[in-house]
């Protein structure tokens, strides 16, 4: 089959599902909407897997280099010749990989939600939102045009907003959804400005043309964008930094990460899909998509690297102190995305120096599986306990064996214990960092130790520690909740063995991923240390955690309060922006804008009060005014019209 015959179906089926369930779900498919959603996603997933097979093994390669194939392209808005907003589908290695990841994780989440969301009043609405999200995310990953990516970028933003605020009767959920929306909107504004600069300088919105023009050092566009400068920094750096801010907002990078922990107010399967596996990696994907352009600009890569590294370590430290299990996972997600970001930042185009690129995509791929698995397990636990707090849990291994084992698998994977998938991908990330920047490598290594610690802190607190007696009829949940856990844990176990360099590399050529046994000793040691420390502190109920927390003192408190970043934001918005901009603006609105309007109304009233006596009700009086007017006009015309 040719791509163009079925590729649009992958996108259009979830859209159709959204429309169908959104319009008629409540009336017609009250019970069956979940099954409809699953079925639609199943078809999409099968088609995606088929596409991946076709692309990677049958016809994606030309002379051993993966080609960019554009099976569908439709010009939507044409501004000038060469500059148009197109709706298209691009197939290249990262897009195909993301297609598989998005549809697959989405399918798992759809299946899991059948059990998790059972009995919800807005069951069909939930599924329609999930379909909308899947459609938007798929549109984002296959976008052939930078403006198309922006449109779908906003669409995933709105679906994320809708799903975070799904329980809109809880004020905290409403606040969280607003926070997520506003912060990502702010970042998207920067993204839009970046797009406009790139489009203005490059003269096109099309990805391939843009990348081609801006990477060719002979082209006039390249010369103009690199020589023009604003505030002493070249326009290219500005554009890429602005685009990266957009990506950082979506990917919850420091300092725009504050929305992600709050976004955990949404239903847990949603967190697994949107805030762990797919939407939050959109920023990484964006940088990867524009990677050829990023790689010619050292300054912007430097920013990407450091923001990624800072986010990774900061989030890992905060994750060690949180007690809400979903928040721990949220910070862990942020930390892992930091890994992906700095892996991209330390990479360069082509050959061995492109290792970071492959490593980043590899980590994205494996992370999608184990992190969504972790979230779904957390969902299963929350489903049983009806609480997010670690203190309410403990000793659950007896009650939920499947969840216990799958959670353990995911924890081992994220901690980087061989031979699970996380080990391999993290290994490549660390190796890429090691080759280019030792300081980044050090941060990453330390973070991987922390990762192991906080994940096993979570694991031991939930499944070991104090034993909690639950009702005897407490059980794990339905088959539909267990199946995704098992499938995802198998993926987590096996995904690391995929020779990723054969499929994805910065230049499309085959890249043999190096595997050095000596090199992997250090990260594994760090991971094991983290696990052992966590075991010591949390396996049995004791007061060691409190003693450690007390001895750390200020650092613990700062980490527990998330380094006061929320407070800083509140200070900036409430104290500075409100007082310096909000209040003067309100004053101008109240006194000057409203004042003008009120003045006009008052003046009109006053004048009409004076002249209303003229309206006497006497027709002859009116006729008299009329004739007087005519006479005056006649005199004026006769004597002054020259």
């Amino acid at each position, binding site marked *: 089959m040719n791509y163009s015959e079925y590729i649009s179906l992958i996108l259009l089926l979830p859209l159709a599902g959204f429309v169908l369930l959104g319009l008629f779900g409540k009336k017609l498919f009250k019970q069956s909407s979940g099954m409809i959603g699953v079925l639609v996603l199943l078809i999409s997933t099968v088609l995606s897997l088929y596409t991946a097979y076709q692309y990677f093994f049958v016809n994606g390669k030309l002379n051993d280099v993966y080609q960019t194939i554009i099976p569908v392209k439709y010009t939507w808005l044409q501004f000038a010749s060469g500059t148009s907003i197109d709706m298209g589908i691009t197939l290249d290695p990262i897009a195909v990989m993301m297609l598989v990841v998005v549809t697959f994780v989405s399918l798992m989440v759809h299946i899991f939600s059948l059990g998790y969301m059972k009995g919800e009043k807005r069951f069909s609405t939930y599924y329609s939102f999930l379909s909308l999200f899947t459609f938007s995310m798929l549109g984002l990953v296959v976008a052939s045009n930078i403006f198309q990516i922006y449109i779908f970028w906003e669409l995933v933003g709105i679906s994320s907003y809708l799903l975070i605020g799904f329980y809109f009767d809880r004020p905290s959920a409403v606040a969280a959804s607003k926070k997520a929306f506003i912060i990502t909107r702010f970042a998207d504004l920067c993204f839009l400005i970046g797009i406009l600069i790139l489009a203005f300088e490059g003269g096109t919105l099309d990805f391939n043309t843009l990348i081609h023009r801006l990477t060719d050092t002979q082209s006039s566009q390249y010369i103009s964008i690199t020589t023009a400068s604003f505030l002493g920094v070249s326009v290219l750096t500005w554009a890429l930094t602005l685009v990266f801010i957009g990506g950082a907002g979506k990917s919850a990078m420091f300092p725009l990460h504050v929305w992600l922990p709050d976004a955990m107010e949404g239903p847990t399967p949603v967190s697994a899909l949107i805030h762990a596996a797919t939407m939050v990696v959109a920023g990484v994907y964006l940088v990867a998509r524009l990677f050829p352009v990023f790689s010619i600009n050292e300054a912007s890569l430097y920013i990407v690297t450091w923001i990624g590294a800072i986010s990774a370590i900061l989030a890992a430290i905060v994750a060690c102190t949180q007690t809400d299990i979903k928040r721990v996972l949220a910070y862990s997600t942020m930390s892992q995305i930091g890994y992906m970001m700095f892996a991209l930042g330390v990479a360069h185009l082509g050959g061995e120096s492109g290792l970071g690129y492959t490593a980043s995509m590899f980590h994205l791929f494996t992370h999608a599986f184990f992190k969504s698995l972790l979230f779904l397990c957390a969902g299963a636990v929350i489903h049983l306990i009806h609480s997010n707090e670690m203190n309410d849990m403990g000793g659950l291994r007896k009650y939920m064996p499947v969840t216990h084992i799958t959670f353990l698998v995911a924890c081992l994977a994220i901690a980087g214990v061989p031979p699970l998938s996380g080990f391999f991908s993290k290994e490549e990330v660390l190796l890429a960092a090691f080759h280019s920047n030792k300081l980044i490598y050090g941060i990453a290594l330390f973070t991987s130790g922390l990762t192991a610690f906080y994940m096993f802190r979570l694991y031991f607190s939930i499944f070991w520690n104090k034993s909690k007696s639950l009702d005897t009829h407490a059980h794990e949940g339905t088959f539909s909740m267990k199946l995704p856990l098992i499938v995802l844990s198998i993926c987590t176990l096996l995904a690391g063995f995929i020779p990723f360099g054969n499929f994805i590399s910065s230049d499309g050529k085959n890249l043999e991923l190096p595997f050095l046994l000596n090199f992997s000793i250090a990260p594994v040691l760090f991971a094991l240390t983290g696990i052992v420390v966590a075991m010591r502190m949390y396996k049995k109920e004791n007061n060691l955690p409190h003693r450690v927390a007390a001895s750390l003192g200020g650092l613990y408190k700062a980490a527990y309060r998330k380094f006061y970043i929320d407070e800083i934001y509140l200070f900036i918005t409430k104290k500075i922006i409100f007082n310096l901009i909000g209040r003067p603006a309100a004053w101008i609105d109240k006194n000057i804008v409203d004042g003008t309007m009120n003045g006009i109304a008052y003046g009109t009233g006053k004048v009409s009060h004076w002249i*209303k006596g003229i*309206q*006497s*009700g*006497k*027709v*002859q009086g009116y006729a*008299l005014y009329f004739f007087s007017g005519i006479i005056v006009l006649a005199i004026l015309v006769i004597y002054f019209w020259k």
Partner: protein
Amino acid sequence: MNGIPISHILFVSTALFFIGIYGMFTRRNLITMLMAIELMLNSVNINFVVFNKYLWPGKLDGVFFTIFIITIAAAEAAVAIAIIINLYRNHQSIDVEDAVELKH
């Protein structure tokens, strides 16, 4: 025809016009006021015809205008009488002093 000077005719039309204005201002009966308006219109008609005849004898524009005004006046009279009939139905009178509902 040439024996009558233009001033005579203009005098007639001016007299007619001010008779109309007088009628308009003094009468309270709507029908009478309508008749006064017709007088004013006709004085204008006379002016048109006279100026056409004396100043541009070769042209017919003034005459056309006169015919036009007569037509409009007929229509206007029909509308005005319709209004008057409705006023009578509502007030049992056609005195303009009685119709004061829209006074401030």
